[in-house]
Each structure stands twice: as structure tokens, then as C-alpha cells.
């Protein structure tokens, strides 16, 4: 029974993602938050696979898990005494933040799920088709200008990061 398997995978990935996101939000130590973020990002990659966009899933694993998470862990290790809870991850504004977040979650879920979305099935008889070729075509046809602009943005951001953290040479 394929549909049941897919539902089970969805529930498993959703639960895993939400639990590890809660770990990011509520953990007392910032290093534990960083490792919980690993679970959340991997869960998001699982979502992308379930939603049949394989290329985005691979990109998510490569860039987020391989790049951004390593960068965050490096920043944590460079800037803090890791074991010290008081120094690393203080929680402030607790009484304001909880009601706002809960109210926002309830509002978003009720609004989004009460709407009637028009759903179209994927074209073609095959249940799965790879998205790599359509994405490549789209990037080099109608999204060519944003693609080039984003490459310049990335270059500027990385050079700027180097300039910000380098040691001053007098």
C-alpha cells in the first residue's frame, strides 16, 4: 500500500522536524540548539523529497547542513564559553513571547487550513519525475537575470564577510 507508506513518512518527518525545531527554540545551551538545527534542516530536506523536488533536497543538504550549520557551529565555538548556560543562551521576554507565538501559530494554522486551495495534480502518468532538468532550463531561460544577480550578491556577501572579520594590518 503505497499511500499509507507516504502518509507514515510524512507524519514521521513532520514530527521529527517539529521536535527538533522545538529543541532549537527551547534548549538551554546554544551548542545544543545548533545540533537541533541539524535535525530541523534534515527534516526540511525530507519534506522536499516528499514534495518531489529532489534537486532542492540535495541543495538543502549541501548548503544548509554542509555549509551554514558548520559556519554557525564555528561561530558558537569562536565566541563563547560553550558550557556556560548563563552566558550562552539566556531567555528574555518569556511572558510576552509565548502568547504571541502561540496566537500566531493558531491564527496561521486556522487561516491557512480553512482556505480552499485549488490543487492540480502533477502532469504525466508517472508518479515521479526528476525536477533537475526543468530547474536547469528555468534558471537559464526565464530566471536568467535573478540567477546572475544572486551570484553577484553571493560574491559580494562573501567578500564583505572576509573584510569584516579580517585582522587589521597596519
Amino acid at each position, binding site marked *: 500500500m503505497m499511500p499509507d507508506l507516504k502518509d507514515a513518512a510524512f507524519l514521521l518527518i513532520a514530527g521529527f522536524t517539529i521536535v527538533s525545531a522545538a529543541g532549537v527554540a527551547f534548549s538551554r545551551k546554544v551548542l545544543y540548539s545548533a545540533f537541533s538545527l541539524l535535525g530541523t534542516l534534515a527534516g526540511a530536506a525530507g519534506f522536499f523529497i516528499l514534495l518531489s523536488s529532489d534537486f532542492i533536497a540535495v541543495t538543502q543538504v549541501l548548503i544548509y547542513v554542509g555549509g551554514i550549520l558548520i559556519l554557525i557551529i564555528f*561561530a558558537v565555538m569562536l*565566541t563563547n564559553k560553550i558550557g556556560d548556560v548563563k552566558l550562552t543562551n539566556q531567555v528574555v521576554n518569556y511572558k510576552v513571547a509565548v502568547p504571541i507565538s502561540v496566537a500566531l*501559530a493558531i491564527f496561521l494554522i486556522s487561516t491557512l487550513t480553512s482556505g480552499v486551495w485549488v490543487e*492540480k495534480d502533477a502532469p504525466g502518468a508517472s508518479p515521479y519525475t526528476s525536477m533537475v532538468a526543468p530547474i536547469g532550463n528555468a534558471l537559464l531561460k526565464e530566471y536568467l537575470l535573478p540567477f546572475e544577480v544572486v551570484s553577484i550578491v553571493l560574491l559580494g*556577501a562573501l567578500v564583505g564577510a572576509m573584510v569584516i572579520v579580517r585582522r587589521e594590518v597596519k
Partner: protein
Amino acid sequence: MITLNSCLAVTAILFALGLYNVMTRKNAVGLLMGVELILNAASINFVAFSHFNGNHVGGNVFSLFLIVLAASEAAVALAIVVSIYKQFGTINADEADSLKG
């Protein structure tokens, strides 16, 4: 079971957790992790909408751009964090206040 609505509910919870993280943390790296949660929720939403709209490629491409922008944002923000730590000896967002009048 795996419908557009269930995906949207999961990402709404993810977004609210990220917002809670942004509102409660003092640590600048912790703040950045909350922003990453919010960006991931948005990215999953884009892919979900494009999947349930006949596997349209636009949402996938937008999610790709979002990942690239998140990477550059993380690089610059963490560089600023390290630089602030060298200057002030702390990365609590409320203590780097030398611009305060």
C-alpha cells in the same frame, strides 16, 4: 493525508517556533538560528505550493534563491558576530550598544 493544508500547518508551527526564538534570545547566534527556522518554513511553503500546483518549477527556483540568500546572510551575520565579539567581548544583542545616544 499529505495535502497542501497539512504541509502549511507544519510550516506554520515551524514559523512560530522561529519567531519565539527570535523574540526570546539574547545571544546573536541564537537569534540567527531563529531566522534560519523562519526561512526554512518559507522555503518548504514555496516547494509545497509548487508541488500541489502541478509541479510548477517557479516555486522550486524561488526556494533555490532563498537558500542562496540565506547562505550569504549567514556568512555576513556571523562575520559581524565574530567582529563584535572581538570588540566587546560579548555577543549578547543588547550589550553591543556603543551607538546608543
